[in-house]
Each structure stands twice: as structure tokens, then as C-alpha cells.
């Protein structure tokens, strides 16, 4: 435990507030975060609250990347008319299933006096129970009353108690209090700190990618989660659960930009191996191998850059040139050293996402890897650039490298290309779908590079360069911290995550230590005083 005295102090200062029922409703509270649920957060929350067999059907509005993370855009985007229309239909679809004859015994805890008439007591029990779970805090008296009135009048109108529940529940499911995670802070000394329910939600969505469970809600209700010991107890509990895997899959999906696949098309005329299921397979390989290293083996996260271990299925085996003779769908695989594979850098996912439909792109790969692993975005090129030399394969310059270098003799271009191209050039031994190759247009490919004074060659050289680069663990810490808070990673500097990074380094780069370090970072639950909140990034 890093900062026991701070937490203790906060507890003492604020205990009088959350000792009472509703700190989040206090007049001096401030909403410091308003984050639209992601599709996965929504689906996981519904599955946890109502069960996995409740179908969720409809369109979710896409997120955008802010500082390399979609999580940050959830604090910027809102719900458009088309988005609400979809949420509204989804809400009704879910509510119908919850109260139908198949599910009501399991999901409606009380028996109405008559199934054909209103029953206030049972309806109230139902609505306050699911209200708490969906809003991640108890309903206010007004909120409950409005829904109870609706359920009663609908039951009367339709002659069906359960129809009343359906409409009452549907209002909860399309309320902004469910669709957005409202993070509320209350005064604590000079600063503001997240009130208990908001803390519970932030922890839960970070670590399990879902809504807080009963124990977290209990810890929020009692205020225990706002004590150092109470927080640590919850963090340890969430950490030791296998559900941490769900949470970290969501994080790595976002950080590694795996959603890029939604918009990747490959030229199957040139690359017939790229079949329909390839994108899903490649995404799964990356998540599986990352989670295996980070959680199952509790490994050194730097090995993500260098390991030759991975998991493959039949689709991927075709690209990797591995005979697939196994019965199961997925199998652990280790590449031979001479195959030149190096961690996730040479997995089909990253290689193919950051390429053109029919050609590899050292620039795209370089720019993406610099941003993803080193938190170093590359500026966009000037508007008026002649790139034609890069493409002229009929001339004397056969490989992309030669052509890129010729182009980069231009001083304005050079400043950026020397920044990102070397990384991409070391990966030129792999084509646009991640297959291995040694020549391009008949010329042997040179995979040497020099970056920030260090010379290296090939993917394994790049892997070692990143493995040893101290910016990589710091970047990972910044991304995790930003992901958890919904902040722009470019505005979260190394100093903010200093204690977390230090703990991460000292532990031998174990992900669990980093998670704990982030959650216990000074300032993780803190918010600036209300007057400063107007300056935060927001939509127009």
C-alpha cells in the first residue's frame, strides 16, 4: 500500500458525507466524467445483470481514437439521434426478455398478487433492484417514483403486471444514467475526490470491463471503498479473479488498436490466403498471446516485443507457413529463431492492419508502432509533397526502402521519416498480410535500421530495441492510466504515472503490479476543484 496516510486523511475529511446515504447526490458534488458506455461495456453489463442468454441486438455508435485510445473518446462523444434510437429499441428488446415467461422466475424476485394487475410492492422491489444495478447507485426517490408510476399505469392499461415491469425497466435501460458512466466527485480538502459509487464503477470497468458487482456496490454503500484498506481489498479481489482477463482484453484491444480490423480490406486477388475469418483470427491471436504472457504466465511485459511464443489456428498457420496438424481450434506455437518472428510486432494483426490492401507500408507500420508502444505520435506530412518516387517500381529503385530513402532526402520529409520509417523498414521482411519474404521486386530486402543512435536489424532487432527502451514501459503505464480515467494519453505525462511506472519496473514489468500502481497513483481518484472543470476537453 503506497499512500496510506493520504487515504486515511481523505476518509476522515469526507466520511461525514458518505456516511449519509447519497454523497453522489450532494449539492456540492461535481460530475467530473461523463463516459458513454462502449459496446463491450454495455454487453458485459447486461450479461452480468440479467444473464448471458439475454440477447442484445442493435447498432452501437462507433468511437474514435483520442490520444491512441477509444476509451478517451467516450468522454468526448455523445449519443446522436440514430444512436439513441438504437439504444431505445435495445432497451425494449432486453426488457421484453427479462420479464417473459421463460425468464421471469429467475429475474423477477417477487410474485405479484395477480399477474393481470398492478402490484406496487413487487414492482417497487423489481425497479429499485435493477435501478441500483443499472445506474450503479441507488435510484433517487423521484427516479423510482416516476418509473413505478409508469409500471403501475401500464399494468393497468394492458392488464398485465409484467408489461408494467417491462416499460419501467426499459426507461432505466435508455436513461443517460445507465448509458453514460457518470463520475462524480465530492470535496475532499482542497481537491475533489471520486465518491464511492463512482470509484466502484471505475475500478470495475477498468479491471473487469463490466458493471460493479454486489460486493463492490456494498463497499460503495458503506463507504469502505474510500478508505485505503477498503480500496486495496477490492483491488486485490478484482485482481485475483479470472475476470481480470476480460478487463485486460478490452484494454489491449483498445491500446493495440485492434478495432482497425473493422475497416481493413485486403486484396484477395494478390493475397488469396486472406480469407474472411482471417481478421478475427489475427485479433484473437494477439489477445490470446498477450493475455497469456501478462496474466497466465505473469510474465515480463517487455517480452511482448521479443517472444517467439504465440497461439495459432488453422487460418493463421497458412500465413505463418506452419503445418497445422492439430485437432483443437487453437494451439500454442513457438517459432524457430531463424524465422525472424519477434513478439506481437510480427503477428499477422499488427503487420496487416498497418499496411495497404496489396502492399506493406513501412511508414504506416512505423507511425503506428511509435504511437502504440512509445507514445510518440508522428506529425502529418506537409500538404504539398511529391511521393511519386516512392511508387516507381519500374525505375532503378526496386525496394520500398530505396524509394523511401530517396523521398526522404527532402529536408521537410526527412525530419519525420527518420523518426518513424526505421521501425517500419525492419519489418519489411513481412508482406501486407504478415507472410515472410526475403525479396521485393527481385531485390533482396535490407532490414537494417538506425534509430536514436542505435543500429539494429530485422524484426528481432526491433524487438530488442523496444524491449530495452525505457519509453515503452512508461508508455504502457500512460495508456493504462488514460484508459482507466478516459483521459487523452497525450495529456497524461510521465510524471503522473511516475509511482506506477516505478512499481512496474521494480516488479520486473508485471502487468498486475502496473494495474495496482495505476489505481493507487496519487491523483487517480482525484479531480481538480470545480472551477477548473470547465476547461476539460469536450464536444462542441
Amino acid at each position, binding site marked *: 500500500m503506497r499512500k496510506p496516510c493520504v487515504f486515511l486523511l481523505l476518509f476522515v475529511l469526507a466520511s461525514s458525507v458518505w456516511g449519509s446515504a447519497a454523497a453522489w447526490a450532494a449539492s456540492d458534488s*461535481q*460530475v467530473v466524467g*461523463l463516459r458513454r458506455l462502449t459496446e463491450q461495456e454495455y454487453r458485459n453489463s447486461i450479461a452480468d445483470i440479467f444473464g448471458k442468454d439475454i440477447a442484445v441486438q442493435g*447498432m452501437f*455508435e*462507433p468511437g*474514435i481514437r483520442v490520444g491512441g485510445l477509444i476509451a478517451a473518446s467516450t468522454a*468526448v*462523444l*455523445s*449519443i*446522436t*439521434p*440514430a*444512436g*439513441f*434510437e438504437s439504444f*431505445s*429499441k435495445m432497451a*425494449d428488446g432486453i426488457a421484453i426478455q427479462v420479464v417473459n415467461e421463460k425468464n421471469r422466475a429467475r429475474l423477477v424476485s417477487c410474485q405479484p398478487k395477480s399477474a393481470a394487475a398492478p402490484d406496487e410492492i413487487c414492482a417497487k422491489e423489481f425497479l429499485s433492484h435493477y435501478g441500483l444495478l443499472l445506474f450503479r447507485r441507488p435510484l*433517487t426517490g423521484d427516479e423510482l417514483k*416516476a*418509473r413505478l408510476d*409508469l409500471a403501475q399505469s*401500464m399494468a393497468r*392499461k*394492458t392488464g398485465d403486471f409484467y408489461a408494467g415491469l417491462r*416499460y419501467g425497466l*426499459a*426507461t432505466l435501460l435508455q*436513461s*443517460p*444514467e445507465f*448509458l453514460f458512466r457518470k463520475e*462524480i466527485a465530492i470535496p475532499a480538502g482542497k481537491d475533489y475526490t471520486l465518491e464511492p459509487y463512482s470509484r466502484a464503477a471505475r475500478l470495475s470497468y477498468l479491471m473487469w470491463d463490466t458493471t460493479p458487482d454486489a460486493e463492490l456496490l456494498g463497499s460503495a454503500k458503506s463507504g469502505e471503498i474510500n478508505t485505503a484498506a477498503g480500496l486495496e481489498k477490492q483491488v486485490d479481489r478484482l485482481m485475483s479473479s479470472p475476470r481480470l482477463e476480460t478487463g485486460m482484453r478490452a484494454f489491449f484491444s483498445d491500446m493495440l488498436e485492434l478495432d482497425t480490423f*473493422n475497416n481493413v*480490406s485486403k*486484396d*484477395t*486477388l*494478390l493475397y488469396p490466403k486472406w480469407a474472411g475469418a482471417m481478421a478475427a483470427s489475427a485479433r484473437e491471436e494477439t489477445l490470446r498471446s498477450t493475455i497469456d504472457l501478462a496474466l497466465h504466465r505473469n510474465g515480463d511485459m517487455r517480452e511482448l516485443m521479443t517472444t517467439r511464443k504465440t497461439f495459432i489456428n488453422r487460418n493463421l498457420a497458412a500465413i505463418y507457413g506452419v503445418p497445422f496438424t492439430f485437432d483443437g481450434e487453437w494451439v500454442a506455437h513457438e517459432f524457430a529463431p531463424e524465422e525472424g518472428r519477434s513478439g506481437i510486432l510480427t503477428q499477422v494483426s499488427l503487420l496487416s492492419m498497418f499496411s*495497404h*490492401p*496489396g502492399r506493406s*507500408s513501412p511508414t504506416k507500420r512505423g507511425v503506428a508502432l511509435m504511437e502504440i508502444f512509445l507514445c510518440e505520435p508522428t506529425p502529418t506530412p506537409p*500538404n*504539398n*509533397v*511529391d*511521393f*511519386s*518516387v*516512392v*511508387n516507381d517500381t519500374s525505375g532503378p529503385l526496386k525496394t520500398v526502402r530505396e524509394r523511401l530513402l530517396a523521398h526522404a532526402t527532402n529536408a521537410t520529409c526527412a525530419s519525420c521519416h527518420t523518426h518513424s520509417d526505421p521501425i517500419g523498414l525492419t519489418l519489411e521482411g513481412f508482406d501486407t498480410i504478415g507472410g515472410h519474404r526475403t525479396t521485393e521486386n527481385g531485390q533482396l530486402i535490407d532490414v537494417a535500421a538506425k534509430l536514436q543512435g542505435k543500429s539494429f536489424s530485422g524484426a528481432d532487432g526491433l524487438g530488442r530495441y523496444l524491449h530495452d527502451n525505457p519509453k515503452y514501459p512508461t508508455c504502457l503505464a500512460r495508456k493504462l492510466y488514460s484508459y482507466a480515467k478516459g483521459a487523452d494519453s497525450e495529456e497524461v505525462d510521465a510524471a503522473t504515472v511516475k509511482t506506477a511506472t516505478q512499481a512496474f519496473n521494480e516488479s520486473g514489468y508485471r502487468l498486475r503490479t502496473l494495474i495496482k500502481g495505476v489505481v493507487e497513483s496519487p491523483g487517480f481518484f482525484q479531480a481538480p476543484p470545480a472551477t477548473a472543470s*470547465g476547461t*476539460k*476537453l*469536450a*464536444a*462542441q
Partner: protein
Amino acid sequence: MKLDRRFLLRGTCQGAAAVVALPFLDCFLDNKGRALAATGQRIPTRFNTFFYGLGLTKQLWVPKAAGPDYEMTGQIKPLEPYKKKLNVFSGLRVLIDDNPNFQHWSGVGASATGISPTKASEFDSKTIDQQIADVIARGARFKSVAASCAGDPKQSYSSLGGANTLPAEVSPLALYTRLFGPGFQDPSKGDWKPDPQVMLQQSVLSVVSEDRKRAMQNLAPGDKARMDQYFTSVREAELQMQAELQRPEIVAKVSIPAAPEEMVVNNALPNMRKVTPLMSRLGALALATDQTRIFNLSVSEPGSQIFLPGDPLGYHQSTHEEPIDPILGYQPRVAQYNVYSMELFAMFLKELDAIPEGDGTLLDHSLVYAFTDVSFAKIHALDGIPIMIAGGASGRMKTGHHIAGDGSPVSRAGLTVQKAMGLSVDGWGKGSMETKSPFTELLA
């Protein structure tokens, strides 16, 4: 005053009151077949946008002559069948003032809002389709509908401002389901009656909107705007339900087909050639049956990722890397992709023009504003950004002209569109693009 339309219909066309169906329509057309004359209700004028990335090649598309007697050049040849229903604008300019030229974005933002964007990927105001929707959409089921022929929900250039865009439907099936799936009641069916479920859902929405006051409490200004957007969306859903309780105003001579099958929707041109006509047809049907009066269709992102199988570079990369042919003076492969864009545009116009309405077609009662991100993609140039406006706007827009470049800001085209759509606006745009001069020669 709100008149019950069904009552009105009954009152004016005696004897046909029981069934408001196809033959019924004609008794409301005046002798030119122009409008629902008896009720004074005209066929509504609809608005569409068509977005395609990466512009055109100036040497190959800008017609030599200005005015009505221009020749269709090579690149716009696919639009030949619609020449008389089309205006093309060459030489319009995007003036970015002190803002950067955001690559593949400044042109999009400026064409869609009349304002040079201050941020990449964000609009500095509502887009033109939404400004028009505020005026003409009332009464239709959906305020606006967007679709992406490349299957990407983000390929929508319709926005209420900021980073939020109204997501595009990503497949013909998804578009079909939204328009003609649950909740759709075919207005040409004789037994049309309001769905009682809609009234129950109205009560649900009214409870949701009652939370507004509490939901807005203690929010920072930016979040307040976002919460406000949420409640605006709720309001729109309420209006949608109101519309669903009314029989649509126009009973078009169309029938709604069965749902399309699942299909591959991506950036590969052969797929786009299958998807674009389907998306277009569904959009046209939605307009014809008054499900919406605003339909936004896109075939790509700015910096189009369309590719022809076998071409390792694809469209966008070609614009930057293909050398200018020293003899031809342009990029031949890029030029071919330009033509593909126009072919896709022609597919959209074809579907709009295929639906008869009154004395003309749906296209005659529509405007289609086609825009792009750049003029010369290789260098992200904005001068001479091509703009096309198709459709007669129910007679308010004169068509068949080439408006030759006089260096006016692109916002003049947008202002002309709004005038033709009947909006009472004096000017449009900001900064150097602020204009009060529509192309009056086109306005009837």
C-alpha cells in the same frame, strides 16, 4: 393549427374515403400532375448528400464551356444520362483563413458547413443536411438517414457539430432493417392504422425525458453540451413516434422489396458496385414513402481507401505515389479511380430518377449535393474543389449548367442549395467563406 390529414383527405375526395391507396393519389394531383393540389400539399422536396473521397482530375473533368451548353467531359461521362438534371461547379475555393489545411478534412468540413474546420475530424457547426433537416424533416419518420457503401459507420459527413457524426448504416440489410423493419407500416397498405405499441413507447420516452433536470445537474460546460445532445436525441425519438402515428403524407407508386441478404461490404470496388445500387434504392424508397426526407450516402472516407483488386496501392496511396505521366500531364491510374467515383454517383442518381412521382421523378423533387475532400489529391489542394448538385428541387433549381470557376468560395454552392430547399437564410459560412450571394442564375 394541426389538421388531421386523414380527415382532410376524406373530406376532399368523396367516395374514396375508406381506402387511402394507390388510385387515390391521382385525384390529388392537379392537371399537370404537379402536386397534391386538392389539399394544397405539395410533394415534399427531399435533400440528399453524396460523398466521395479524393476529388477529380481537373484536366479531365472541367468542361470547356460554361453555362447550359457544355460538353460532358471524360470523367463525368457516367453522369451523362442526368446531364439535364445536374449542375456542375468548377473552380470553387475552400478558404481556410488562419486554420491549417487538415489533410483530407478541411475540404469536407468547408463543403459541409461553409466553415473552415478548426480541428481535424470535427465540424465547426451542424452540417448542411442537418441545417436543412431542421426545416423540412418534420413529419417524416426519421429526421435523416445515413448509409456507407463501404460498410463503415464512421463514413458519415452528417453531424450536429463537433466530433459526433450521425452514424451511417453499414450494409443494405442494416439500412433495410432500420427503414422497413419493425416499426415500419407500409403506407400503401389499405388497412393502415397506427400501431398501439407506439403510444406505450411514448410514455416510456416521457419518463426518460423527465429526468433531464437531474441529469444536467453539476455538469461541466462540455459535458452539459453532451447531455443536452442526448436529450435532443430523445426529443427526436419522440417526434419519430408522433410521425409513426400519422399515415405518411405521400403514397408512392412503389412496393417495398424483401430484405436484402447479408453481403460483403468493404472498400473493394467490385463489392462497392454491388452495394451502392442497393443502398441507393433503399434510400430512394425511404424518400418516396416519406420515411425520411434527408438521405446521406457515402462511398468512402476522405482519402478514399477504395481499391481495385490487383492494384497493390489502392486509390488513396495512388494519389500520392503515382507519378504524373509526363506526356498525359496527369496520374492515369488516379484518373481511372476518379471515374469509378462518378460511376458510383451515377448509380445513386439512377435510383432516384427511377421512381416516378407527380409529373416527374423523385430526383426532380430532390436535391443531391455531391462533395469531396480535395481538388487535386496528390498535394491535398483545395482550389477548384468539384461540387455537383443534382435534381430540380421541385422546380426551384434550374439544372443543366456548368458554373465555371470564378474563384468563389464553396459556401456559395451550399447557400444556393439552401435557397433552393426553401430555407429562409440570407447568408452562409464564416470568415472568408461567409457569403450572401447564392448562384441566383440557378434559382427559379
